[in-house]
């Protein structure tokens, strides 16, 4: 289980972008897209990036299982020890345990995260995966793509594109990780 975040509500003035039913529709749609893109579900695993990515991966996996009528694994990959910004971060993120399929080789791994921004987290996640094994393919699914990439990375499955200005912030809140209703907010600087 992902760790509980502090239940901090988005700041006053933040605008609601997605509510719970909308998020659920999006995740179900992504589940369909993943099935379409991966005919061989035997070799497919979802791997979330802590902490909300783990929860989102779990939900997408549940949708896939329901749609395809067969169980799909959802794991987790810790990225914090693969980050390259230890020396400049204000706070060290908590290192989480990784839960991955026994053997990554020959498998398709769908990395799952809540928000795609600079692309650095995805890069760290791919490095982390590579240290466990050599997946046949890595795909990338995100709930929100807010733009402003710093690396040549794009998502294969995007829940919603939200064009943002650099000072703006995107808040994802999930029942399981935040003890708040599922929602996505955006706030002005």
């Amino acid at each position, binding site marked *: 289980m992902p760790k509980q975040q*502090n239940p901090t509500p988005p700041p006053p003035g933040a605008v609601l972008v997605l509510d719970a039913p909308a998020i659920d529709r999006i995740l179900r749609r992504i589940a369909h897209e993943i099935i379409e893109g991966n005919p061989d579900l035997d070799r497919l695993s979802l791997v979330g990036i802590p902490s909300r990515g783990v929860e989102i991966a779990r939900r997408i996996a549940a949708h896939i299982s329901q749609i395809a009528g067969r169980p799909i694994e959802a794991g987790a990959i*810790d990225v914090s*020890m*693969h*980050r*390259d910004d*230890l*020396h*400049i*971060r*204000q*706070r*060290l*993120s*908590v*290192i*989480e*345990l*990784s839960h991955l399929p026994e053997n990554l080789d020959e498998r398709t791994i769908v990395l799952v995260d809540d928000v795609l921004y600079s692309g650095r987290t995805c890069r760290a996640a791919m*490095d*982390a995966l*590579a*240290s*466990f*094994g*050599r997946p046949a393919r890595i795909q990338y699914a995100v709930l929100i793509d807010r733009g402003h990439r710093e690396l040549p990375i794009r998502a294969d499955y995007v829940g919603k594109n939200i064009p943002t200005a650099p000072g703006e912030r995107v808040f994802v809140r999930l029942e399981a990780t935040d003890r708040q209703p599922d929602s996505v907010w955006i706030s002005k600087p």
Partner: protein
Amino acid sequence: MIAWNRKDLVALEDLTPAEINHILDTAAAFKQVGTRDIKKVPSLRGQTLVNFFVEASTRTRTSFELAAVRLSADVVNISVSTSSLTKGETLKDTALNLQALHSDIIVLRHSSAGAAKFLAERLEASVINAGDGSHEHPTQALLDTFTIREKLGRVAGLHVAIIGDILFSRVARSNIHALLKLGARVTLVGPSTLVPREFERMGVAVTHRIDDVLEEVDVVNLLRIQHERQRQEYFPSLGEYTALFGLTKERAARLKPNALIMHPGPINRGVEIDSDIADSGRSVILDQVTNGLAVRMAVLYLCAGARGK
């Protein structure tokens, strides 16, 4: 998010229970790195770690070195004898020189209590205490505690016996702090000359009869016993020590079935522990070595991260 703001790890006496648990949780994640195909992560890439050992120690130094390598740090080993240090530059000057060479982390083993604190107060680099005299050996106690938690699922409420030369043992002192902070009971066992009653003031029980505790304890942590020239006035012989305090087969048989047998190493087979018992399934001595690596990775990662701010 749990706060870790210490650039140094000097003494477990200074840490809160939450900080100790945070290190152990982080160590659990780093332990996984050892099971991967590629046993290396880039966390400390570009950082230089100096193993500065003013007292000989192969295993602790190697463990720190391997931990640093797995975190992608560059490692330099410096070994000096205390005598050459006192003749030449002072510890302060040596340390300032290391800092002038832009070392990021200094792992210090030193024969003087307080030496790690002394450096930590004077350097911007992270200072990790790898044993200061008879004072503390924090990473050893953290790996002991980690092993207990891993094997028995908890630390709180357990009863741990630490057996041996407590008076001169930094391992014992750090273990006492870690175990008490995490809610365990601690009983010190050993000759009255090496386990004076003064230790009771730290919140532990003291006994000089090993047979009193064998059936009660969940963990026995056996310290290496030494009988060098300077210890001869503390007990008459290794033979008498073994007779009174050694974990013999007969004594091991009286332990609880799931009790752990620990030893910080290197072990004296047939002295503080029967050779067969050391190799038995209840002995977690080699797990301690493995866990030491994970704990040291966690400590290096956390302290280096705290320094970055």
